């Protein structure tokens, strides 16, 4: 007689736990903390349902690396930094014969992604998502973790790769000062994170050190229509320069300025940040900060390979300096 195959879900239901917990217990993983009575409950449920234990598969000789991204809207619309970096890093890993698993992790509900990474038994995680990193750190996850951008918290337990955001602010400010600009609007989202704060504060400090003034115009980084309308309506009329948190905010502003009757760079200079691909094709082309994704990818790859070859993993901070890309807008 045909007997229905017992699944992890059946056992999870009977034991009153999640499928992930069942998987961890039945695969004998001791590196993840699960209470002994829960483990016992899972084994009893499996036995009662007639679950047939299979020999764990041999771990693939091909090391697997999880890339954990933020939501795709931010990845594709908000910035090209993470996508470009991930693409270059993936190529390097694959050329070396490493497997890459890419996961999109919701900032509001990161747990399912965390469980997926756990069950994949990845040897390393490259996180482009601060929420995911914090979840890993809070869970005592012991797989080497490489975090790109985000906060400095956890630098003792993971490898951090940061843009030198202070340098971003300083280079932009010096460029505008060199052009004789003296009153700049900084179009930034709310200053919640390290990246926003460091860029903003260094720009302000540098610009104001030469007797010039700055004002923070707070706008959501994805409010492209509002940004375009703000400039089109002439709201930025008194300013002779604009520094944007990202190119994705600068591009609608360029259009708004021009449709509103202001000439760039004759009437006002515009500088963005992160060298979005399309910035080179706008008219005028957008002056921006190149954050050097290829340097990030090379550095992270070197550390990944080091761990795979000899098990060395050194938590700490790597800061990569940006470069000013002078184009037509400022």
């Amino acid at each position, binding site marked *: 007689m045909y007997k229905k195959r017992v699944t992890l879900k059946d056992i999870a239901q009977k034991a009153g736990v999640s499928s992930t917990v069942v998987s961890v217990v039945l695969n004998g993983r001791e590196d993840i903390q699960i209470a002994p009575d829960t483990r016992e409950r899972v084994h009893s449920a499996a036995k009662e349902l007639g679950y047939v234990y299979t020999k764990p598969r041999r771990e693939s000789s091909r090391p697997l690396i999880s890339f954990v991204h933020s939501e795709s809207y931010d990845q594709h619309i908000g910035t090209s930094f993470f996508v470009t970096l991930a693409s270059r890093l993936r190529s390097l890993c694959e050329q070396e014969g490493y497997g890459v698993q890419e996961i999109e992790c919701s900032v509001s509900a990161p747990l399912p992604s965390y469980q997926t990474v756990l069950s994949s038994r990845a040897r390393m995680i490259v996180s482009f998502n601060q929420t995911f990193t914090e979840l890993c750190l809070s869970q005592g996850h012991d797989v080497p973790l490489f975090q790109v951008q985000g906060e400095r918290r956890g630098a003792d337990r993971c490898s951090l790769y940061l843009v030198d955001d202070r340098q971003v602010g300083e280079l932009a400010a010096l460029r505008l000062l060199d052009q004789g600009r003296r009153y700049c609007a900084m179009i930034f989202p709310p200053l919640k994170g390290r990246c926003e704060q460091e860029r903003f504060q260094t720009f302000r400090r540098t610009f104001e050190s030469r007797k010039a*003034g700055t004002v923070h115009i707070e706008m959501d980084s994805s409010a492209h229509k509002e940004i375009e309308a703000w400039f089109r309506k002439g709201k930025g009329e008194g300013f002779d320069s604009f520094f944007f948190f990202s190119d994705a905010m600068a591009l609608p502003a360029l259009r708004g300025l021009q449709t509103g009757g202001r000439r760039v760079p004759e009437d006002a200079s515009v500088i963005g940040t992160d060298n979005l691909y399309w910035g080179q094709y706008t008219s005028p082309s957008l002056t921006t900060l190149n954050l050097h994704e290829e340097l990030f990818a090379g550095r992270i790859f070197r550390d990944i390979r080091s761990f795979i070859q000899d098990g060395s993993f050194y938590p700490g901070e790597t800061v990569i300096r940006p470069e000013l890309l002078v184009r037509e807008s400022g």
Partner: protein
Amino acid sequence: MTGKERIGNILQRKPVDRIGLYEHFWDDTKKSWIQKGEMKESESYAEHFGFDMDAFWSFNMVADLDKEPEVVEETEETILVRDGNGALLRRHKLHDSTPEHVDFLVKDRLAWEEHIRPFLTPDPARIDFEGYRKVRQECLAADRFFCWSGVNVFELMHPVCGHEYMLMGMALDPDWIREMADLYSTLMINLLEILFEKEGAPDGIWFYEDMGFKDRPFMSPDMYRELIMPAHKKTIDWAHGRGLPVIMHSCGFVEPLLPGMVEAGIDCLQVIEVKAGMDPLRIHKQYGSELSLMGGIDVRTICSNEKSQIDRELEGKIPLLKKGFGFTLHSDHSIPETVDPETYRYFIERGLELGRY
């Protein structure tokens, strides 16, 4: 009503429980009143007399901020100083007074472009953030109406080139004056944006702009419209765009300029100097529906320290000025040290009694 509500309504000529209350004093007055035991050093007039509003002067608009005033001559009574605008001014050391204009580095456009214009940047060092924050918080805690206060373009230009060269410029090189006014208005807006972004907005804006002397304004109404009004309108429009009403102070006789000032958008005229020829009743009759008034009570009657004179002045004006809900009690200039604290108290009590609705 709180002071904040009351002044907010008065500036829009909306119903209130009584007329508003505010005052200016010469510096020597506080020293004298402290000696007489009326006030403490740490107290503000607003706290002490329960004013409905207060204001703070936040900007240093001298061109070269780094220049230490250079003492050119000093006697026992006076000191002659070259300031960061290149102006040579003689001041009395022993008492408050308007400084004597001895000479100015800037006498024409060329000198202005060379010596002043390059310095006029929106440098945050021009702003007293801490002082603004302190008075704003005090007003917030006491429910007083809080004004940012400072001079507008007319009062920014003459410290650079003096009244005479400025007025000659109006006649002989009007483009220079127009450009100067425009640049100062832009600079002021830039600094206001910087201040308000960092510290939060006030409840209103107070511009000091002395455009008259005894019986005459400094310029014709046409010159005002052509050279000064565009800059006034620009700064007032900016304030209104942020929901901030504008009070404009002018000493001297400025009634001929009033049509232009009202057109530029002022919400309230202060100080209505009777001894210069201003008549608050005439102005109220003519502009009362579109303009609030503050002042116009002849300070000479208060200086007399005679209750009967004060009564006569207040009784003859307040019942009429309070009509339309747009009046705030204030002398027609500032209270000098010769006024007894008792007299000033009487002035307030009697004025507010007459000013009840």
